[in-house]
């Protein structure tokens, strides 16, 4: 079942969400990476980051609270080793990026622009612990517009920008319109919900616990974009585990779904979902 997302024709509407596939290698053992519509990388920063030095994931009913500190090898390391490997494995690669400020977003995008094999760039404007993690804290819709423009300006035509937004039900309509105006070909709703670890550290909440909220965000986003006559796609993320979950989002107008924390629970979730969605639903 191919779908068109942000102008890209993908093999499946099921994408692997950012930060839930290790380097990609760890997931490849369970199903070929070409199974997924796309693999979104963990968010890559300009400079390497070691990530949190103390464990930063806790379990909460039907969810995970996490603050892993964006561990990644930095853009150079990613381009030299991880990206080529993902491509040889047949993955459709969407590179997630996050930066401290707009200039850094532009710099990262400029270097991605010349890297072969990047299908799209997902701008992570949803980091739930942005201040603690030291990245741009997207509080106002105009931040969304500015970051999307900064990245888009540097990319060649044909490499679309996906804007990943906070699942903020109050401001989602405004935020998606700004993202679409700035040229985002799709919005991803949403990232992890701002939360705190039991010890009080800033963190994000993910998993089935946030699904109803993500569903509301997707519905409101689609409505707002349609009302504004925007062609921007909506990609769903938040607590998606089963085919029924995925179909609920697709029925509300999402063109694709991302699977995140469910992979941490069962590394075959996204592959099984892709198979289930490729066969038509049996209606009793």
């Amino acid at each position, binding site marked *: 079942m191919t779908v068109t997302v942000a102008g890209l024709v993908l093999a499946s509407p099921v994408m692997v969400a950012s930060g839930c596939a290790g380097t990609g290698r760890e997931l490849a053992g*369970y199903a070929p990476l070409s199974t997924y519509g796309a693999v979104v990388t963990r968010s890559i920063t300009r400079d390497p980051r070691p990530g949190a030095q103390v464990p930063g994931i806790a*379990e909460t009913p039907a969810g995970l609270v996490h603050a892993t500190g964006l561990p990644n090898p930095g853009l150079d390391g990613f381009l030299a080793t991880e990206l080529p490997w993902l491509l040889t494995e047949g993955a459709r690669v969407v590179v997630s990026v996050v930066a401290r400020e707009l200039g850094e977003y532009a710099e990262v995008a400029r270097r991605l622009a010349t890297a072969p094999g990047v299908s799209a760039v997902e701008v992570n404007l949803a980091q739930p612990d942005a201040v603690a993690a030291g990245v741009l804290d997207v509080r106002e819709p105009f931040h969304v517009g500015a970051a999307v423009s900064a990245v888009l300006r540097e990319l060649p035509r044909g490499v679309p920008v996906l804007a990943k937004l906070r699942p903020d039900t109050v401001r989602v309509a405004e935020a998606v319109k700004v993202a679409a105006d700035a040229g985002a070909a799709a919005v991803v709703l949403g990232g992890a919900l701002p939360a705190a670890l039991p010890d009080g550290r800033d963190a994000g909440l993910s998993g089935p616990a946030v699904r109803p909220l993500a569903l509301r965000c997707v519905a409101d986003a689609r409505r707002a974009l349609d009302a504004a006559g925007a062609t921007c796609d909506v990609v769903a993320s938040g607590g998606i585990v089963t085919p029924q979950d995925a179909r609920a989002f697709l029925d509300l107008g999402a063109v694709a779904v991302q699977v995140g924390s469910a992979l*941490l629970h069962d590394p075959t979730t996204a592959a099984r979902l892709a198979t289930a969605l490729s066969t038509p639903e049996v209606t009793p």
Partner: protein
Amino acid sequence: MTPVHVTAEVLASKRIGAHQHLTLVAPGVGERFRPGSFVAVSVGSAAERWHLARRAFWIHQVRPLGGYAATVTLVVEPRGPGSRWLAARQRGDTVEVTGPLGGRAFALPKEPVPVLLVGEGYAAAPLFTLAERLRERDCPVSLVLGAADEAHLLSALEARRIARSVTVVTGDGSVGARGTVPDVLPEALRRSGAAVVYAAGSTPTLHAAALAAEEHGAWSQVALEQQTTCGTGLCLGCPVPVVGEEGVARTARACVDGPVLRGDRVRWGDLR
């Protein structure tokens, strides 16, 4: 050692002391295991997903049983919600497991050198298959087994079969000497003349084993139990501060760079 994710069936469940020994039919897991590898278990039914984090368990034994070529036995100490749920599984119940996991299991010496195995409570589970592999290589095996009390001591009888010398120590003195594993380590090391110490237990015990080994000029291999949310390398949430090959500090992932690490590589002071 490519792991698989399977729905395992409980073939047998037996209470021994404070532990529940659970034998699973988990096709593909036992066949690929090495001593020191583990499985990640989902808590609760697959449809429920109330507990998203997985619980790790050492692979204690792999053996043919009931017509299955490679059943996997885990030793579960019921403590919190996850381990209590697992320990309550009955014959015929199903459990979602992924394994064998771990990028590094116990490394075996190339020469037939004397070795000391150190295990505390349920964590001694991986040491029995390790001892067998070491004996196949003609390594003289000595063993220190410790626990809070007799009920939490793992298979002391079995231990005497596989090791030439066994030291038992319990917190309440119910069996063996009264004390802790670190108390008896220096003497056990001296007597065994071990060139390698293999340790599995609580972090303070692993640290003590690494230090004692270093003092005796021995290598150490420690099996860390850092909380593993996924166990598969996907979440990047199991940092272990280590000293890399080049002597520079870096952060390893417990589940894929471990769980067994060289004791002298771990930055114990920074470990949480």
